[in-house]
C-alpha cells in the first residue's frame, strides 16, 4: 500500500512543518517504533520497516530536527529514543491533542487497511475523534452505535475503527 498524501482536515493542518509527522505515515511509523522500542538503531528500523536505509536516515534526521527524537547514546551505532509528545492544537472551537497514540494511529495505516480507508474518508480530524471514542469504548463508557449516531457514520464503520484503534489505547 502506498503512503498517500493526506487530505488535510482543517484543524490538524494548522501545525506547520513540525507536524509533518502527521502527514507522513512512514515517519509516524518510525517515531512509534522507537517509542515502543527505546534505544533503537537505524538498522533495526530498516529491517522492521523494510525501507531503504537512506530514507530512514533522512526521516530520523527530520524527526530529530523537529524535536520528536533524540540520540540516546554517544557511541556508534547511534541509538534513538522518542519523546513523549503532548501537544495541543486549537483552531477556533476545535481542539486536538497530538499524542504518541495519535501518531501511532496514523502509523498503523501502513499495515491496517481499515485505518487507511477511515483516514481517507474522514481525515485526520476524524481519526483523532475516533481515538477519543476508542478510549471511552475500552473504558465501557460508550457503544459503537452511540459513536455512529453522534458522528453521523454507520454503526459498522464505527465498529471497524473502534476495533482497529483498540490496540493503540490498550498498549
Amino acid at each position, binding site marked *: 500500500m502506498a503512503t498517500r498524501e493526506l487530505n488535510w482536515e482543517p484543524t490538524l493542518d494548522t501545525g506547520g512543518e513540525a507536524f509533518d509527522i502527521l502527514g507522513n505515515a512512514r515517519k509516524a511509523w518510525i517515531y512509534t517504533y522507537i517509542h515502543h522500542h527505546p534505544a533503537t538503531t537505524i538498522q533495526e528500523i530498516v529491517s522492521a520497516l523494510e525501507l531503504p536505509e537512506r530514507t530512514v536516515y533522512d526521516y530520523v534526521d527530520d524527526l530529530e530536527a523537529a524535536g520528536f527524537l533524540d540520540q540516546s547514546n554517544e557511541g556508534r551505532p547511534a541509538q534513538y529514543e522518542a519523546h513523549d509528545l503532548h501537544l495541543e492544537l486549537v483552531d477556533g472551537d476545535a481542539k486536538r491533542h497530538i499524542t504518541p497514540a495519535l501518531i501511532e494511529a496514523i502509523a498503523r495505516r501502513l499495515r491496517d487497511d481499515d485505518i487507511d480507508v477511515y483516514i481517507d474518508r474522514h481525515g485526520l480530524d476524524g481519526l483523532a475523534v475516533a481515538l477519543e471514542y476508542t478510549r471511552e*469504548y475500552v473504558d465501557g463508557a460508550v457503544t459503537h452505535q452511540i459513536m455512529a449516531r453522534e458522528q453521523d457514520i454507520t454503526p459498522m464503520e464505527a465498529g471497524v475503527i473502534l476495533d482497529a484503534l483498540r490496540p493503540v489505547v490498550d498498549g
Partner: protein
Amino acid sequence: MDGDEAVFIDSSVLISCGRRESTRFQALAREATQRDTVFRIPPAVYAEVTDDPAVGAYMATGSPVDAAVQEGWMTVTDSPSYANSDVSAVMDQTRSFIANASNRSEDLVEKADTQIVGLALECLLTDTADSVTVVTNDIPLGDATASLIPQYGFDTQQVTWCTGGDFAAELDADFVSEFE
C-alpha cells in the same frame, strides 16, 4: 432442551471478526463446532453487518456473516416477542442502562440495539435454553445483560456475557505485531 446454552453474538464482535480477511472468523467457527452449537444473531445485528453502505469500503468480499449462515454455524433469529411484557420491559431497561452507563441521552440508544438482551431473556423464559451467553465488545450492553436478566427470576449463573477476546483468544490478536 434442558442444559443447553444459547450463545448470542453481537454486531460489535461480528464486525471485529469480519474486518480484513483474518483468522478471527475461523476461530468463531471453531468455537461453534467445539461447543456443538449454532450461534444466534438478532435480525437487527444481521441488518447492521450486511446492509451497511460502508460494507463495500471495508470488506472487499462482502460480509462473511452470510457465509457463516450458509455453512450452518450461525443463524439469524426471529425478532424478539415484543408482545411479551417481560421481553419488552428488559429491552427498555437495557436502553436506559446503556444511556446511563455512557452518560448520554436515551435518544442515542435505539430499541434495536437492545434486541440481543430481549432475545436472551426470551430464551430463558420459553425454556429454549437453560443458560445464555452474550458475546459483545460493547461493555455497556454486556453489563446490561448480566445485571438485568437475573431480575426476571433467573440465577446469575444462567447469564454470562463476555467480549470476543474472552470468548476466543484469537479475536483479541493485534494485526500489527511490531508495536506490541
